[in-house]
């Protein structure tokens, strides 16, 4: 009874493996200062894998998080963290700093 499930899983893997390498990677950057993102609205191309550098200029750590982008990453104070997401469908994808959610809010706009 296990075999069909595994066969389906492997077929899905095999089918997608070919296309997975085709993603183009686009770099982007964003800063965090006084628990606010700059810019608060970030434009990225849709359909591409995004490599986003988050420069935390505060002294305190922050967790860059987005349910929509499926990302969560702790970025220590005074350091730059790398997050990867996408490829995205066109749309708006909110993100926030979990440790300072009242001020640290932003949105990725994929076009």
């Amino acid at each position, binding site marked *: 009874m*296990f075999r069909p499930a595994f066969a389906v899983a492997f077929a899905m893997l095999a089918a997608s493996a070919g296309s997975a390498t085709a993603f183009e990677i686009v770099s982007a950057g964003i800063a965090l200062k006084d628990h606010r993102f700059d810019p608060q609205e970030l434009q990225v191309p849709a359909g591409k894998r995004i490599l986003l550098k988050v420069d935390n200029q505060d002294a305190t750590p922050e967790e860059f998080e987005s349910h929509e982008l499926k990302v969560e990453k702790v970025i220590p104070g005074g350091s730059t963290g790398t997050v990867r997401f996408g490829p995205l469908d066109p749309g708006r994808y909110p993100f926030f700093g979990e440790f300072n959610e009242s001020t640290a809010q932003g949105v990725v706009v994929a076009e």
Partner: protein
Amino acid sequence: MIGAFIIVLREVIEAGLIVGIVLAATRGVAGRGRWIGIGVLGGLGGAGVVAIFAGAISDAFEGSGQELLNACVLLVAVAMLAWHNAWMARHGRELAAEVRKVGRAVSAGDKPLTALAVVCGIAVLREGSEVVLFLYGIAASGTTGMALLIGGLLGVLGGVVVTGFSYLGLLTVPQRYIFSVTGVLITLLAAGMAAQAVFYLDQAGYLTVLGKTVWDTSAFLPQSSLLGIVLHTLVGYSDRPSAMQLVAYVATVLIMVALMRIAAPPRRMIAVGG
């Protein structure tokens, strides 16, 4: 203060539920308190170390160190849980019978309490390092810190209460069924962890196949809500799972069930007296 309480509670609940399940799964086994205590303390120590080296870990592997560390410890936990369930499939029946008969803790012989100690340690380490960083951030920012700090510490306390409740809840299950119930819980727990490992590997850029979201129930039951967190921990609920996460989830359940079947002793043709 409420905000800090919620943030910390959210992290601690996950570890608390896991420790509660492990406590129930080892009910009646001598020495479990010591092993689980070692696991939790080890996890706390590890959380501190991870927090201190957060910068170095984050920078490692082209900025994917944190994700890879998370994925690795999760997969170790999955392996430990699979080992535990396979062991219980072989020895659980005798163990349950003995506990029932003597009505007190039994020596488990070679029972892999170490495996479950590691699982507790990993659960505490993962959630704890974020709590440590968050509380450090509050402490470092000074002025308004005190109320937030108190909120955070109350959050930790809340997590301990959750551990107590999940354990006491499982204690209401009759001893006869307790190992079956915890076996199912541990299988789903492990499957959820495997899916979570896939999430981190995807984020790190190492496993991007089948990355499309299969469903989106975030409007109905967001994963960040308290119920969402509890279900996420217990059965691996995700409000936006990728296809690869589902594959990992199902594969983990199938593999663990297969291992338990293989490990189970051949059924004897003796009627088991009720």
